[in-house]
């Protein structure tokens, strides 16, 4: 993820040097709430869709943080919802492992069964 994380600034997701998604920072209330628009640009049909919205809410509970992620604003026929739905659980699981054990998870990308990502990771 590349951004200066200020409201109004751009944000982009870059994998292996390839920019796959872009957006704009909508809210940046550190360390409580972060929100940005999200637009997948690698696929013609995805490009035509309006951007969706990602919101992270961080709530401390003693020594823990409750993290709530909402990704919304998809059209009924969105072509990216499937990939989004499969991607987030893997990313969040790996994030939790990284923060709690010091190491991210190693999840084989083909295990996510997201057809589109094959081009990106080949």
């Amino acid at each position, binding site marked *: 993820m590349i951004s200066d994380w200020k409201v109004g600034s751009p944000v982009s997701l870059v994998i292996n040097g390839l920019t796959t998604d872009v957006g704009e920072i909508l809210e940046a209330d550190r360390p409580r709430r972060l929100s940005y628009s999200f637009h997948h640009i690698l696929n013609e049909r995805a490009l035509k869709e309006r951007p969706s919205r990602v919101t992270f809410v961080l709530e401390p*509970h*003693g020594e823990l943080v409750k993290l709530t992620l909402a990704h919304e604003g998809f059209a009924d026929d969105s072509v990216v919802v499937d990939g989004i739905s499969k991607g987030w659980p893997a990313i969040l*699981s790996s994030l939790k492992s990284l923060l709690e054990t010091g190491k991210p998870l190693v999840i084989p990308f083909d295990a996510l069964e997201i057809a589109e990502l094959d081009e990106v990771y080949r």
Partner: protein
Amino acid sequence: MSKPEFVYVTYIETSAEKLWHALTDGDFTERYWFGHRVTSDWKVGSPYRFARQGKPSIEGKVLISDPPRRLAYTWDPCSADAKRERISRVTFDLEPRGKVVKLTVTHDNLDEGGKTFRDISGGWPMVIASLKSMLETGRELPADLSASAKAQSHA
């Protein structure tokens, strides 16, 4: 009108066998399931029960038992409020993926807008987070998390 369902997917660095054991063994559930100890012989058709400090909390019947791939049971909370709602169902799917296991928890056959749906929507993320921490770090989440989270949601 479709009934609501709750689906939670997580990836845990463990084996399917260890994860199955954690889901079905009372010594383990007592630790990560906030004091709720499960007992069952886990045969299809057998009863199972969770109890906390000896007091029954959830009970039901085993529907599917295919270790270490798939476990399913009916979900019948022991409170008077919950007894007025339809008995729901929980399915655990355990899929090894290299060094991790993909765990999918599907809770369905719930009453729309019901207390059970509200309770489990908050409960599953806590229980699964605690289970993952226990398996990966040896330490489950603090026992008072469940109580403090309930207090917050009623505030």
